[in-house]
């Protein structure tokens, strides 16, 4: 689903001493099927932005279009359309509550009045999508699982709604490297297979570099940069001014290029680690002409 924001602002605590403009005149366009990396410092407006997508927050001014649905300050997203937008909050495992994993994952579909048999098949599918064995896990208590498993069950609960837009707020925070990779690879696979539009909020420039094909950089409630990852990561100084960082691949290449003669420089677009290594190996294996 294509998502557009047209001059969207959001004011918290309007008319109170705590009034704060959390989003300032945001305009952006996300094509259907994009994998978007959203980065920005704590307090930059990332979470406020994504809560506008499924009607948890309404814009104070401006207009949001998701597919054919238009959201304005007075027009909320129709309830039936909310299931199209799956929102995975930070630490989603804190929201697990049912007695068994299967019941927890079925909760959403049942709530949208799907028949029980269909809800169950959705739960099975969703749990398998996140790499869990349905038969082995369905009757277990979600609270007896490991942190990584709980996180996956919570994500499955959102996937069981079969959303068309998947929004994830730091889905890997607190997980070990193997767990981070498993979750993100899974999300990326689902994104491709189901042709979702995916928004990933992350503090990790490495994760953004690896998965995103479009980047949004937020600062002080505004979108200050947007574009393809290679365009955004080229502006290392600007990102650092925003208290952000570039992936290690990018700082590594820029350091190497400072030491190499102009003709031997590495392309600055190799921000994915495998591509960087493959390029270096290729360069090393080809005998130099000069």
């Amino acid at each position, binding site marked *: 689903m294509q998502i557009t924001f047209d001059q969207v602002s959001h004011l918290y605590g309007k008319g109170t001493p705590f009034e704060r403009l959390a989003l300032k005149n945001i305009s952006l366009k996300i094509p259907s099927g994009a994998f978007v990396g959203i980065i920005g410092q704590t307090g930059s407006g990332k979470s406020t932005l994504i809560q506008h997508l499924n009607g948890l927050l309404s814009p104070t001014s401006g207009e949001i279009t998701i597919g054919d649905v238009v959201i304005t300050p007075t027009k909320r997203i129709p309830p039936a359309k909310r299931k199209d937008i799956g929102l995975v909050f930070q630490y989603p495992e804190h929201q697990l509550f049912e007695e068994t994993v299967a019941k927890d994952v079925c909760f959403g579909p049942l709530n949208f009045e799907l028949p029980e048999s269909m809800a169950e098949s959705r739960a099975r599918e969703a749990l398998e999508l996140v790499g869990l064995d349905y038969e082995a896990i369905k009757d277990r208590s979600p609270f007896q699982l490991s942190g990584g498993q709980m996180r996956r069950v919570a994500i499955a609960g959102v996937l069981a709604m079969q959303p068309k837009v998947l929004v994830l707020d730091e889905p890997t925070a*607190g997980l070990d490297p193997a767990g981070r990779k498993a979750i993100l690879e899974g999300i990326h696979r689902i994104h491709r297979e189901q042709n979702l539009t995916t928004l990933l909020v992350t503090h990790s420039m490495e994760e953004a570099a690896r998965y995103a094909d479009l980047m949004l950089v937020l600062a002080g409630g505004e979108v200050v940069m947007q574009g393809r990852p290679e365009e955004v990561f080229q502006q290392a100084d600007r990102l650092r001014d925003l208290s952000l960082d570039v992936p290690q691949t990018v700082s590594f290449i820029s350091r190497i290029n400072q030491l190499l003669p102009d003709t031997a420089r590495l392309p600055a677009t190799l921000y994915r680690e495998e591509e960087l290594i493959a390029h*270096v190996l290729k360069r090393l294996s080809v005998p130099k002409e000069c």
Partner: protein
Amino acid sequence: MNEENLLTFRNVAFSYDGEEGQRVEVLKGVDLTIAKGSFVSVLGHNGSGKSTLAKLMNALLLPESGTILVSGADTRNGEMIWEIRRHVGMVFQNPDNQIVGATVEDDVAFGLENMGVDPQEMRKRIDEALHSVGMENYTLAQPYRLSGGQKQRVAIAGIMAMRPSVIILDEATAMLDPQGRQEVMHLAKKLNREEGITIVNITHFPEEAVDSDRVIVMNRGEVLMDGQPGEVFSQVERLQEAGLDVPFTVRVRHELVAKGYDLPFGLHQEELVEHLCRLLLTK
């Protein structure tokens, strides 16, 4: 009190009751000592026993068997428990779960009030503690308005005011943005160097461990590796098998060496940059 080894684990085991009544072993006979003034990083997959290890260090948990000594005091000695907790401060993952005060200075005062410290002395310690974490200009700020990194620094100030020997960071940077992470790591290094505070940093980020004196790797409740960062991170495959990662520089070098290129081992980007440039230019 024993000055050399601040923390001693002797054959420490810990387990809890699982779902079907079975015992789940979290730590299986761990032996280790942590020297006063050192900066130790602890790595390990989720469920490897890292956090249990931390909670045993200040008697939040007690060992099922074996002994834990903090400056010579057994953590099972109920009379010593407050003294032990004052010595061993802990910073947790979520900054919002550990702030109790309505203002920054109230928050830092919390522990001191519990200890019944004299008000004048309290004032002095709060100012010193906030100064040591670089938050002296935020004395009356409301904690909820601070950034994640600043909140963690306030939590560390609360510990510093108690005059601790050890600060344990239990994934204290996991929820922070890059700047917040840098602030906290920078502060931990400074307190270690300038104030002689022993730091135990439990983390999933291998980069944070590169400048430690020592790296301990936990795997399934046991100490898998224990040594200087260079010794530990040079064993790339072994770490990856344990579900862990190595610093970027080590990973890139590993891939190139696997293809037969000759690059010396190094933990810092600058070393790899230099050697790789040489290799690229002489090719």
